[in-house]
């Protein structure tokens, strides 16, 4: 693994993630005929959060949130350091589990419902993430990201179904409407703020920071589908993010049952189906 690129990721990912979040807010505002905040607004917000009082419901809450951040960074570090893709996804799952545990530990009803919904979101999204790793393995013959980047053919051409299905569950992972069940950036919440209800000041800052790291990591996953064409890869990753913003703005939140069913059906038909087609073509 490349120490240099890991350090680069740790420093640059929050910057890029913050800028993407800022652009997200501007684009969303334009879609809603508003002007929107300046692009640097997310940075101002998070910096301000860290200068606030550390309001907690109990001593351990902020530790779990910190673990969420740490493991998200580890997961991203494995990814951008060229490590094992499966290990990277499992580390991301651990990070997510810590987020859920933080919610459980707070003993607050809104947060607890948020925790259950976050678990449902994981149940809906994780299969597709892991299946993406398996699919990329089938095309490139390796789980090591550093070797995947050396591939000479474009994985997307072999596994377009997997790509579409991954984009579908990306809406869940990025906490965008209609799948923002556990928490969201918007204020229209029957759950108050769900999972993040009890986070305040620095701990909410950690959460935001982790979200930026996670966003960059997920976009990196999209990039892998065009590993041999760097520029196309970056453009497609940004385009997918734009589509996610669009979906976010034209959909209302749905119930968990529809999310789980649709995510699994998409995973099974487009994801697993694509693998079968690939298997029979290569026989």
């Amino acid at each position: 693994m490349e120490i240099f690129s890991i350090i680069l990721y740790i420093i640059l990912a929050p910057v890029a993630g913050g800028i993407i979040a800022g652009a997200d807010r501007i684009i969303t505002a334009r879609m809603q005929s508003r002007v929107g905040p300046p692009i640097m607004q997310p940075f101002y917000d998070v910096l301000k959060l860290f200068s606030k009082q550390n309001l907690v419901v109990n001593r351990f809450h902020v530790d779990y949130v910190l673990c969420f951040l740490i493991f998200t960074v580890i997961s991203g570090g494995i990814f951008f350091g060229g490590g094992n893709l499966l290990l990277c996804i499992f580390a991301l799952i651990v990070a997510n589990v810590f987020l859920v545990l933080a919610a459980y530990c707070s003993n607050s009803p809104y947060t607890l419902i948020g925790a259950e919904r976050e678990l449902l979101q994981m149940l809906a999204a994780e299969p597709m993430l892991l299946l993406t790793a398996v699919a990329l393995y089938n095309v490139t013959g390796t789980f090591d990201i550093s070797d995947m980047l050396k591939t000479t053919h474009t994985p997307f051409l072999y596994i377009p179904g997997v790509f579409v299905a991954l984009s579908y569950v990306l809406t869940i992972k990025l906490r965008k409407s209609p799948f923002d069940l556990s928490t969201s950036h918007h204020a229209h919440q029957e759950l108050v703020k769900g999972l993040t209800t009890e986070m305040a000041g620095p701990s909410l800052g950690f959460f935001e920071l982790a979200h930026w790291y996670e966003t960059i990591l997920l976009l990196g996953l999209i990039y892998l589908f065009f590993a041999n064409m760097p520029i196309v890869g970056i453009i497609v990753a940004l385009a997918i993010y734009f589509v996610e913003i669009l979906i976010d703005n034209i959909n209302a939140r749905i119930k968990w049952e529809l999310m789980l069913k649709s995510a699994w059906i998409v995973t099974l038909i487009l994801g697993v189906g694509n693998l079968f087609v690939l298997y029979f073509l290569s026989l």
Partner: protein
Amino acid sequence: MDWATFLILFPLIPTVLLLFTKKNYEAQKWIVIISSILIIAGSIGLAIQQVGRGGDFYYINAHAVNGLVVFGDIIVALVFLYICRNLPYKKYWIPLLVVVQYGLVIFYDLTGRMPEMSRYIYIDNLTVIMGLVIAIVGCLIAIYAVGYMKKYHHHHHGIEDRSHQFISAIFLFFFAMFGIIFSNSVAWIYFFWEITTLCSFIMISYSRTEEAKNNAMRAVWMLLLGGLAFSFGIIYCADTLKSLDLQQILTMKKALVLVPILLFCFAGMNKAAQFPFGNWLLGAMVAPTPSSALLHSSTMVKAGVYLVIRCSPILQDTAAGAIVAIIGGVSFLAGAAIAISQRNSKKVLAYSTIANLGLIILCAGVGTPFTLSAALLLIIFHAVAKALMFISVGSVDNATYSQDIEDMYGMVSNMPMLAVVMVIGISGMFLAPFGMLISKMAVLEALATRSPLFPPIVIFGGSMMLFFWTKWMGHLIAVTNKVPPKLNKEIGIEWIGLAGLAILTIVTVIIYPLIGEWWVIPMYGQCPMFSENIELTIGIMIVMMILPPLSFLIHWKNLVYTEPYLSGVNLEDKTKFLSSLGTSKEWSFKNYYLEKYFSEGKLLKPTIIFTICLWVLMFFMENL
């Protein structure tokens, strides 16, 4: 060889001694502790002797011992018939199962139709790993059982105290398990095989309640079906193959030996509680917890997967082998899915056992060296973590008189040490960097190149496991504002078992690359999960495990404590809020169980029907 003989025969001494210690807890304690130390020492001695070696055969003077095994068969058959004495008439088929299988085997024995053989004991690294698991995990459970049974009788007044018999049965179990793994003669394996069935009957029926008796009887007839298949396998080997030497059979032509091997696999998967036979394992939870811990982790079910792994060289690349793998996969999926809808902690554990064993069977059915290495890792990690989970659930039960997961809400405030132990156990079951996840990753890597059918099974099952383990763990670590109820928190000698297994859960993760280098690689060859850079792997594991506890040591400055948000209608009492009618109301929260989709009623029946079809298909497949 000496170690093997010692390990098989020695457990008989405590078995007999313990029978004379009725209500003498002090004597029980010392007998169990001393014998456990000796058994563990024996297994480690054997392991050290085998480091880096392949398989070794041992020849022993068989005639005398063979006679003993036949005599033992007759005794076991009589005991089975004795168990059946009170059955209603319409259940005549249960004793019939005994009569048919033992009738056949003993008839062949006595009329000299069993072929002669000379290699009775076979030791390779698979045996070594099984031996370590049985000895270390099993003995820690045995020590735990001494303390547990005392408390069990403290709050189960109606039940006669026969704990000496119970613990004695545990050691009889070790005798049978060591017998199964060291024997190379299928007739010998069969003898020990049926003793484990007998032991599980003794344990499950311990409380002598109606439910316990019924469940024990169900376990017996379901397991006897496996025994029946086993005896047919032996007869086939004796008649057609003219050999009872398992290692020799495994080197014969696939087409020739597929029938007996499939019969053995049937017995193995039946013992490993794969669907449709999962029911006996679920019924076994009425027994005192140490027996569940034993049946689910190091013994019994592991004997089943051991046999399937032994047979896997024949299964590899056959259609029947693929169906074995699919049955394992279906059990994995169904077990994980049904566990989501269970509230009773022991039931969650039982379903997760079925699921994890399914995964091991899946690996064995595919049968490449890589998947077999993964299966071995799964056996080790699953035994340790599952034993830990069961005995901690037992201790919670002794303290709170409840097995309901909802009642464990906020346990970290009431019983912090026990909660920490359980969190380690649950992490061991599904979280990186702990064992089961390493193995699942290995399974996924091993299967990724093969048929696209298997990776999705592993992925979906794993995601469902994530769901039910996390919500359980969340309940444990919730920090509540409630005043803890008065609990019977005293835990004595059980701490040896609890702490021992908790430490093992962590240590096995750190040393697994070494286990790989010493025993797995010499047997199955190098594979990607045991990377060549052992120090780096160990380093990463330790860092990932140490980070979370370290973060809890951070001393945050300026923490300002506040109340959970209750829409602004908080009351003085933190568990209540002001309702719209102006009265105070308690708020409460229960986990999601998604019963609409994952309940037993919805999933059990289709699974059973589907798997029965698969089993039938498995036997016809090789004729196609």
